[in-house]
């Protein structure tokens, strides 16, 4: 019995010291004792196969076709009234009119929902470089993306929406395109938000809705008396806009 207990304790200790405890980091793939049907011969997103030459399951989109599971509704696509929308509605998909000029204005309805969508997508995809207020001073600037520019100059304020759409889709100079990450409607939403940022940074007193005007003027006068140097950037911008407002009036 003693010998048995000895061996038993030894085996237990040996097992624990060989296998360790749960949660230990390891680099070899996990062992599958019974592989069952865990790995079936089927194509999965971003998977690998031996059939195609470049071994990728994902196939490039054939021009003029629509991927399954894309933003299209199947019911719409298989309806006999369906027209291939890109040819039908070039403004929405290319930012150009039929005669090849940049679109001015929006081919989608601009409403609060679109603005919110635009803000969400802008925060995800543009903020790292262009910063939250669009002055081009995002976090990546200090790490080397030095050419990011500000939206707040006359060239970009006067630029046609369609041309900005083209910049987002295909990129421009040192900025790469976001066409594959954003659907056309989302790109237009981002442009709507970008326009809002431009107005916010270049606003005049007249742009402030009347109910808030009084409040704003009061808040501007209050810090003017004991002007602390460590003002928040927002206040200084409002100062700017108020001086501008004075000069334009």
């Amino acid at each position: 019995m003693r010998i048995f207990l000895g061996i038993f304790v030894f085996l237990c200790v040996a097992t624990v010291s060989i296998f360790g405890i749960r949660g230990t980091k390891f680099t070899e793939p996990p062992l599958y004792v019974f592989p069952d049907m865990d790995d079936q011969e089927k194509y999965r997103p971003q998977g690998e196969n031996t059939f195609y030459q470049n071994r990728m399951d994902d196939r490039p989109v054939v021009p003029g076709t629509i991927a399954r599971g894309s933003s299209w509704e199947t019911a719409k696509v298989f309806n006999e009234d369906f027209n291939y929308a890109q040819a039908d509605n070039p403004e929405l998909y290319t930012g150009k009119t039929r005669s090849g000029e940049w679109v001015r204005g929006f081919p989608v309805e601009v409403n609060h929902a679109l603005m919110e969508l635009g803000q969400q997508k802008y925060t995800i995809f543009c903020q790292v470089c262009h910063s939250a207020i669009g002055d081009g001073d995002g976090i990546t600037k200090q790490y080397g993306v030095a050419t990011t520019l500000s939206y707040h100059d006359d060239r970009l304020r006067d630029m046609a929406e369609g041309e900005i759409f083209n910049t987002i889709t295909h990129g421009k100079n040192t900025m790469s395109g976001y066409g594959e990450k954003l659907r056309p409607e989302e790109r237009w939403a981002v442009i709507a938000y970008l326009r809002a940022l431009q107005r916010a940074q270049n606003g005049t007193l007249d742009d402030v809705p009347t109910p808030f005007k009084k409040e704003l003027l009061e808040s501007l006068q209050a810090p003017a008396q004991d002007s602390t140097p460590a003002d928040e950037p927002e206040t200084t911008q409002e100062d700017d806009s108020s001086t501008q407002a004075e000069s334009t009036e």
Partner: protein
Amino acid sequence: MANIFPKWSNFVPIKIILGIGLVVTAVVAGITYYGTPKYMRVGYQPIQPVPFDHNIHVEQLGMDCRYCHTYVDRSEHSNVPSTNTCMNCHSQVLTDSQALAPVRESAESGEPIPWVRIHKTPDFVYFNHSVHVNRGISCVECHGQVNEMQTVYHAKSLSMSFCLDCHRHPEKSIRPVDEVYNLNWEASSPKEQEEMGKRFVHDWKINPPLSCSGCHR
């Protein structure tokens, strides 16, 4: 007549039963502890071709998961980003870093970077990312604190019981939809989580599948 069996043999049956009991307990305990995904998978941290660091990109730069894992909220599959996504910045940032050499090669040749896959459900299981993340289930529930990982590892077991634990009590892990990508978010107290979760489950008509055909379709 002399005793045929010596006295110690009286204890042999008890000792054998005891011994078998010990061995069986040890084997069962060993298999439950070592034979289940909680041991087999948790902690799997393969060596990646590029030492990509989520902590730098998410915490230090403040990037959203969807900048790279773009399709997580609109499709079943959460994509690993293409080389172009890296080159958006790394065409200008750290252009001579040794660690990024495979990224630059891949951008030139068009061959994808051979990332080693970490999380994988068996092919007979139907899993869908967008239904979860659009209903207030954060990445952290199934992937752990990826935002703090320098190298991603398998943090949760992703076994069938893991899925079912949550499907039976979704109110314990459901959160406001705009906090899904903020992996550091936590309700102020477990009680608050419970109340909020119950409200969401009721308002959004949350009804996770518990029947076999929900996940094995």
